[in-house]
């Protein structure tokens, strides 16, 4: 396979994506005294081609790859400890490395995956080509993520889309959404729209911001069973809106994305909501949209509107 990554020329676009944002945190590891036959079985069962080797404190001390297994099979060494076959000089990544550093590693060394360590050499995760692809998709496209790996970024104060720091306390606009207050749903959106108009933001954009914030706010009131917050950040070239709640999360985001799918109760439908248009509308009127959700943790919606 010669699917070499030809991404280096775009590297600076991705400087704000860190290795820790895209890595898989749930890593299968081995300790050095384990038998090579076990490594072979773990690779076969999990369909992976390499396993990091760590000591008792999870310090990365080596990596054993499928190539090492082939050699072990050839020389009938499967019964020996992993220590004897592993590569001890591991080419790894630091969790603070940027996506361009990551891409460079893939281009320089022909490995399929790189372990990620912290400054103390403790294994934090692993990055495969697939993780890079996800990182890029996240940067470029609307992406709907609903898995455990990304849930670790829920309720943290950086942009899900660009990775830049967005401190809630520094938001230009903040509105607290009350629990189950359906009568007032949309008030935050109306206030935000007026706030942006007063700031001299273009009417077409303030309308779109109003619409998607209205839908997001209504979702918090109807579905989350928790409280939430609307934050807005105005940058030179874009407006970022985050709607964050601590509620029940979205059970099935794939379905929620489809027009016409709704789990809203009847009393909500009587108020003219629950037509299953909420998330599709948010997608339609924002330039970029990411929804992170984990059951019983909450939901975080981030939307970007470009000003040019």
């Amino acid at each position, binding site marked *: 396979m010669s699917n070499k990554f030809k991404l280096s020329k775009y590297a600076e676009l991705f400087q704000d994506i860190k290795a820790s944002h895209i890595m898989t945190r749930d890593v299968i590891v081995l300790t050095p005294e384990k038998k090579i036959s076990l490594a072979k079985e773990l690779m076969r069962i999990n369909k992976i081609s390499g396993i990091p080797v760590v000591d008792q404190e999870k310090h990365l001390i080596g990596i054993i790859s499928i190539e090492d297994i082939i050699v072990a099979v050839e020389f009938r060494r499967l019964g020996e400890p992993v220590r004897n076959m592993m590569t001890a000089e591991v080419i790894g990544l630091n969790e603070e490395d940027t996506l361009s550093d990551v891409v460079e590693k893939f281009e320089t060394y022909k490995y399929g995956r790189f372990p990620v360590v912290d400054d103390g050499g403790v294994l934090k995760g692993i990055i495969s080509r697939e993780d890079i692809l996800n990182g890029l998709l996240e940067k470029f496209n609307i992406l709907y993520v609903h898995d455990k790996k990304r849930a670790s970024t829920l309720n943290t104060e950086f942009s899900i889309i660009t990775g830049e720091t967005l401190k809630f306390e520094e938001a230009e606009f903040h509105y607290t959404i009350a629990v189950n207050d359906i009568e007032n749903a949309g008030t935050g959106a109306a206030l935000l729209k007026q706030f942006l108009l007063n700031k001299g933001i273009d009417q077409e954009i303030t309308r779109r911001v109003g619409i998607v914030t209205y839908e997001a706010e209504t979702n918090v009131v109807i579905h989350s069973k928790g409280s939430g917050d609307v934050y807005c950040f105005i940058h030179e070239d874009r407006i970022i809106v985050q709607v964050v709640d601590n509620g029940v999360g979205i059970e099935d985001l794939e379905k929620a994305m489809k027009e016409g799918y709704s789990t809203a109760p009847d009393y909500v439908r009587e108020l003219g909501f629950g*037509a299953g248009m909420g998330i599709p509308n948010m997608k339609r009127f924002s330039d970029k949209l990411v929804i992170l959700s984990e059951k019983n943790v909450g939901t975080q919606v981030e939307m970007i509107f470009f000003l040019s």
Partner: protein
Amino acid sequence: MKVKEMVEILQGEVLTGHSRLEEEVSIIGAADMMSDILALSKPRMVVVTGHTSPQAVRTGLVTDLMGLIIVRGKQIPSATLELAQQNNFLIIKTQHFMYSCCGKLYAAGLRGADEQQI
């Protein structure tokens, strides 16, 4: 067409936004679902609806509607009227049912967002 002509056609009653009677109306929509209004409305549109809660006005304000036509002579909550009044948002009440209301406006030459001449 001016707002006041539309009011005449519907034998309607202007409840809020009296200062807008001379404004020009060009597109009409009809919906009870707020999400449909959010999705499909156009700025300065007037929407025919049976929905009377403050949500209807809030949705209208967010989407830059000119106002609402409330059908079937429905009782409109005071909270709805207050919100509309504060924002000079037009509310017209008519005794006609939604279908007849739409038919009369269409017959008078008003078109929907899908047929609007650009």
